[in-house]
Each structure stands twice: as structure tokens, then as C-alpha cells.
């Protein structure tokens, strides 16, 4: 469904991504892990159009998407969250939800009231509906993460890329996010999740890709990854 081929990204003299290739199948839940600076977020930035690759290509459902602006990619059904939450701070929660609702003409059309209803449903799903009129900046960090999750659902993408969804989140909320991801995955969506929280990601995904210094050093099940010496080295040694 989504294929990354020979992707390279240079920042000045630094090679952030070095000849990276992998495939993601429909309805997979892929985890991407690796030590700091290994290029995880850069990969997502490249797929979502925030960055343009130096060389290589990215195809989604057979069509190339590398080089497209991120709104085009969002239109095609790939959504993402950010490591540091990027909610629209001085807009209300409801308005935050309405932006992705209205930005892309959906196949089923939908009037304002339809969108509002759906937004409320999603907010209920992530248990933040009581905050709907609140300014996003007044939300706690955890609530903002939930809002980002809700926002992405409003986009209704087939592929959801989460960048550190568990970072800085207390254990209770972590369990909630866990269950939301599981539920959404069951609905048929494809997930790519970056996380440092190895426990969570081992639990969630059946397949992991390990990055180190911009290169893929392992691609397999959590068991395989856990036992791979290269992975252990990458995390421990430098």
C-alpha cells in the first residue's frame, strides 16, 4: 500500500536518511523505533510531505507522493500527528476538529451539522467532548495529545502516522491511547507509529522497523528485533 524506496535525505552535510526502503501493507500496524537522531521523525516528515526527499521515491497505492505538498498527501488519506503537539492553540477544540473536517471534500459530502455531530462523536470517543468550547492552549498536555488524535480521525485517513503518541503521558492516559489505537486499527486503518516507549510498541505492533543513523537495521517481529544484536548495539553503543 505504502512503499518507500531508496529514500535519502540530506540536511547540509548531514545524512539524516540513508537509502531507506520498506513497505507497509494495508491494515498493518508498523512500529518504527531507534535511538535518538536515527531519522524516525524525518521519515514521517518525508512521507507526509513536510520535507522533500533528496533522492528516492515514496508511493502510495501505486502513485508517487514524494515531493507533493502535505495538504495533497493528507487529501489522499495519510494523516499524522506531531511529537510536540501542534494543536491550533488559540482556536477552540471544536474549531480544531472542524479544520480537517472542512478542508477536504469528503465523498459523502456532509453539511455543517453532520460534521459537528461527527466531531462530537469523535471527541466522545477520546473523552474530551466536555472541552469542546475550550481554547486548545488551555488543555493539559495529555488532553492535547487526545485532541490531535481526534483531529486526525476527523480527517478520516486510511493511514495514520503517530509520532511518539505515548511521550510525556501518564500511565493511565497511555492505556487509553493504547485502546484507542487498537480500536481504530480494528476499523481497518493502517498505522505507522514511532515510539521510544518500547514496552508499548512491542505490545501493539506485530512488525517493527529499527532505524539507526538513517538506515534500516532490522525489520521484523518484536521477538526478532529484541534478539537482534545490531539493535542492541545501536541502542547501547554509540
Amino acid at each position, binding site marked *: 500500500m505504502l512503499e518507500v524506496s531508496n529514500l535519502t535525505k540530506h540536511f547540509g552535510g548531514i545524512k539524516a536518511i540513508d537509502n531507506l526502503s520498506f513497505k507497509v501493507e494495508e491494515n498493518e500496524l508498523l512500529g518504527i523505533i531507534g535511538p535518538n537522531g536515527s531519522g524516525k521523525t524525518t521519515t514521517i516528515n518525508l512521507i507526509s510531505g513536510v520535507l522533500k526527499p533528496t533522492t528516492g521515491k515514496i508511493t502510495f497505492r501505486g502513485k508517487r507522493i514524494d515531493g507533493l505538498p502535505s495538504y495533497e498527501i*493528507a487529501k489522499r488519506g495519510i494523516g499524522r500527528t506531531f511529537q510536540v503537539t501542534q494543536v491550533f492553540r488559540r*482556536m477552540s477544540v471544536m474549531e480544531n476538529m472542524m*479544520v480537517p473536517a472542512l478542508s477536504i471534500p469528503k465523498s459523502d459530502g456532509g453539511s455543517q451539522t453532520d460534521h459537528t455531530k461527527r466531531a462530537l462523536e469523535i471527541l466522545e470517543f477520546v473523552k474530551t467532548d466536555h472541552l469542546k468550547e475550550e481554547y486548545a492552549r488551555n488543555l493539559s498536555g495529555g488532553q492535547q495529545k487526545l485532541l490531535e488524535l481526534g483531529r486526525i480521525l476527523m480527517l478520516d485517513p486510511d493511514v495514520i502516522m503517530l509520532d511518539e503518541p505515548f511521550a510525556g503521558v501518564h500511565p493511565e492516559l497511555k492505556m487509553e491511547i493504547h485502546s484507542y489505537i487498537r480500536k481504530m486499527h480494528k476499523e481497518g486503518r493502517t498505522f505507522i507509529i514511532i515510539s521510544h516507549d518500547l514496552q508499548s510498541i512491542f505490545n501493539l505492533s506485530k512488525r517493527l522497523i529499527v532505524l539507526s543513523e538513517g538506515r534500516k537495521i532490522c525489520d521484523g517481529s518484536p521477538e526478532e528485533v529484541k534478539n537482534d544484536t545490531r539493535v542492541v548495539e545501536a541502542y547501547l553503543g554509540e
Partner: protein
Amino acid sequence: MRYKTILFLASSVVIGGLIPLFVHGYWLHVTIIACYYAILASSWTLLAGYTGQFSFAHLALAGIGAYTSALLVLNTSIPLYLSILIGALTAALIGCLIGGLVLRLRGPYVALFTIAFSEIFRIALGAEYKFTRGNLGLEVPPLFEGTSKLPYYYTILGILVISLLIMWIILNSRYGLFFRAIRENEEAASVMGVNVVRYKMMAFVISSFFAGLAGAFYGHYVGMLTPNIMLIPQMGLIIAMSVIGGIESLAGAVTGAITVQFLSEYLREYGQLRLVLFALVLVVVLRFSQNGLVYPLYQWLFERKIRAELTKERVKVEGIRNAGGK
């Protein structure tokens, strides 16, 4: 809330229409100029306050509208009303061009680029005096015959009301939501599917059209055009009006424009001092109230009650939630 706004608008229009009964001569002129500034300030707010593009070329665009219209009337047989429209459209076109050029630029680079553009245009207008009469002044045929200011007043009032209406409708639609999202966080907006390119340029085109329209009117009202109308300090005046009034609302910009203009005239006898005072007010307002004076005041006065009720509601719900456990 929408009902309140309509009421407010309607009453403003009525009051505006009745003003000439009480105001004559020089002060009617001041009112006309105030309306001119109000159109400029509010259209600038749409661009800067809503999409976050701080363009300093706004007055240059007004000047483009003014000079285009004037030169068309003087040199061709195109009727005056059409010239004004063409002037506004030309400004919109150039605004579109500028918008396209600054798309990749951020923050101060947009300001620098547009300052440079504005100055180059002003210098060129002055230098090409064979066409434009440069700093000697271009005489512009008046919009109406006779010496009465009344038709001018109603025209500019009409333009102001219509432009505000159009901008208000746009800003309260999904486009307004997208504009604000772009200003808040352009990257996040894009990732959420907002075509930031299209909407940033849309803002430029709309605001430039109204700037050009106002400029064209100005030329045919005052009867004389020089490149000095687009001096950077003049642009600073527009920005001051918008900021003092409240950079995030059209109403704020309009109020700011009217307030500054009238105060400025009222204090005219103090000469240079009033400009110093306004600049000082601007600095102080910016320093302590980044969102301006007028609109935040309004929010504080009228929306405090609503805020309080929402907070009470939230506390109640949280209480129930916490008591029931997860």
C-alpha cells in the same frame, strides 16, 4: 451571537447614513478619510491578523489602484466607474503576484520583501514623472461633479459597508477557519489538509482588491496623487490602527482606524507631537496587550460572562467524572 452582530451592523449603517446631518465641511472630509483608512486597516487585518502574512505593501497596492484608475481616466476613454473597478482588479492581480512570491518566505522576510516592493514602486512612480507627474502630483478627475462632499461620503460609506460585509462573510465561513489555522500553525494546517497555498493567496487577492478599491476612490476624491501616499510611515499608520484596534478582528481594525483618525484630527493643533503620541501609544499597547486595545476590551466586557458560565459547566462535569471513576 450572530443576531447581535447583525443588529450592530445594521445600526452602524443607519448611524453612518445619518452622520451628514450633523457633520459638515471639514469634519465630513475627516470622516470620509476615516472610512478610507477603515477599509485599508480592515483589509490589512484580514491578511495579517488572519493568515499571519505581515505585508507592508498594502498601501502600495492602494496606490496601484489609485494610479491605475487615474491614468486610465486621463489617457483613455474608459468611463470613470469602470476605471475604478479596473484599478481595484489590477491591485488584486499584483497582490496575487506578491502573494505567490512570498509563499515560501517566513515572518520578517515577508515584511522585508513587501517593504522593498513598496519602496521600489514608490521610487519608480516618482522617477517616471513623464507618466505619473511624480512628486509634482497627478491631477485626478473627480468622481462627482460639484463641490458637495455628500456623494463622496455615501460612496465611501457604501464601499466600507460592502467590503466589511464581504470580508465578514468570508471570515465566518470555512475560509476564515482555514485562515486562522494558517496563522496559528501553518505546518499543522497543511497536514490537516488545508491548501495553505491557495488560501494564503486568496487572502492576498481579497485584501489587495479592497485596498485598490479604496485607493482608487481616494484618488478621485482628493483629486491629486503623489507617491507619498505609500510612504512606509503611512503604512505604519495603517498597522497602528489595526494593532491598536485589535489585530484579530475586522471590527477592531475599523474602530482603530476611526479612533486614530479622529483623535489625530482633533489633536491637529499639536502638530508633530500627536504623531509621537500615537507611536508611543502603539508601542505601549503592543508591549502590554499584544491583541490590541479595542477588541480585547470588548471581549473582556462582554464575553467574561460567557467564559464564566463555561468554566462552571466544566468544573461540574469534571466533578461527576472524577467521582464516577474511569
